[in-house]
């Protein structure tokens, strides 16, 4: 080991981070090199001094000052929030009033105006148009359909076993009568 190599491992030597072989090599080098031996001793002395430097302590009012700062910062945060609210209170209230007005008018329109409008009642004309449309062929005849169209007083109890084809002629006639 030469002096340059020793310089590179001097910290590991002090911190006992070298393996047995490296340590032995370092010891062998120091036995023949007074410069490195002195350097090691000097450095160990400096490190001892460093670790035993007088410790400083915070002043006695350190904690109370810290707590004051915390309380002050909390207050400032609250104040900032209030300040922002105060600064923007007028625009906020205008926007809120507009939103309230819009919401009220939507509510009134949907609950009062729309249900009473004549458009909401289906007219006979529309129904007649629907009637004039080409009817799709019935996929499957149901027993319920004849009952739905019966306007006569006599009620027909559908026979579940009997498959009836729906009579669209009746429907067209009823619509025409309404017209």
């Amino acid at each position, binding site marked *: 080991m030469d002096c340059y190599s020793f310089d590179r491992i001097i910290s590991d030597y002090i911190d006992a981070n070298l393996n047995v072989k490296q340590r032995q090599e370092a010891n062998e080098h120091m036995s023949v090199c007074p410069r490195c031996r002195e350097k090691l001793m000097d450095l160990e002395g400096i490190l001892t001094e460093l*670790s035993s430097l007088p410790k400083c302590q*915070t002043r006695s009012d350190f904690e109370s000052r810290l707590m004051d700062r915390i309380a002050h910062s909390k207050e400032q945060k609250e104040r900032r929030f209030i300040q922002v609210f105060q600064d923007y209170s007028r625009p906020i209230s205008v926007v809120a009033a507009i939103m309230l007005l819009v919401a009220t008018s939507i509510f009134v329109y949907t609950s009062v105006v729309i249900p009473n409008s004549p458009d909401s009642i289906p007219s006979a004309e529309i129904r007649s148009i629907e009637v004039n449309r080409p009817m799709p062929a019935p996929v499957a005849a149901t027993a319920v359909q004849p009952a739905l169209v019966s306007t006569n007083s006599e009620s027909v109890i559908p026979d579940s076993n009997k498959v009836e084809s729906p009579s669209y002629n009746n429907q067209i006639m009823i619509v025409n009568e309404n017209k």
Partner: protein
Amino acid sequence: MDREKIKYTDEELIKRFQQGDERAYIELVKRYKDRLLNFVYRYLNSFEQSEDVVQDTLMKLYTSAHMYREIAKFSTWIFTIAANLAKSELRRLKRRRVISIHSMGFDDKEYEIPSESYDPAKETTSNYGEKQIQQAIDTLPDQFKTVIILREVQQLSYEEISQILGISIGTVKSRINRGRLRLQKMLKELKEQ
């Protein structure tokens, strides 16, 4: 009551504080204020500024406690905050010193050197060695200064230093070795003066 407090580890205390227990915060402050001050003081070499930095660190602990995750040791986390704040403060101080020197005109015949801040070391000891050592620390480049203080003054492990500074253990070892040798060289020069 005190016995109960001693039972808690730092990690348990920060957890309690995160849950809203302010007494846990006060306990952490008591545990760390002097340790942090010793670290920052050796870094800045100014007592008042160091105390301010420690206050800022503990304020940050109060406001950002929710940022702490249990994956790291609490001491590592708090030292990381203190190290970052100390670095910023040192940069600010250096800038201010440069500005104040620049602002002095050549015609200024008299100027007052600002009185040095309260220094407990000066009051408690007259050890010349300590003054020299602090002077040597001050001359170290930042990267060596931090590791030397964390290792030699705070007695932290390589692993802890590596976590605080966000560098590999290999880099920590290398910086410690080079930092120690530089410090030794600097002290030799100071002795010879």
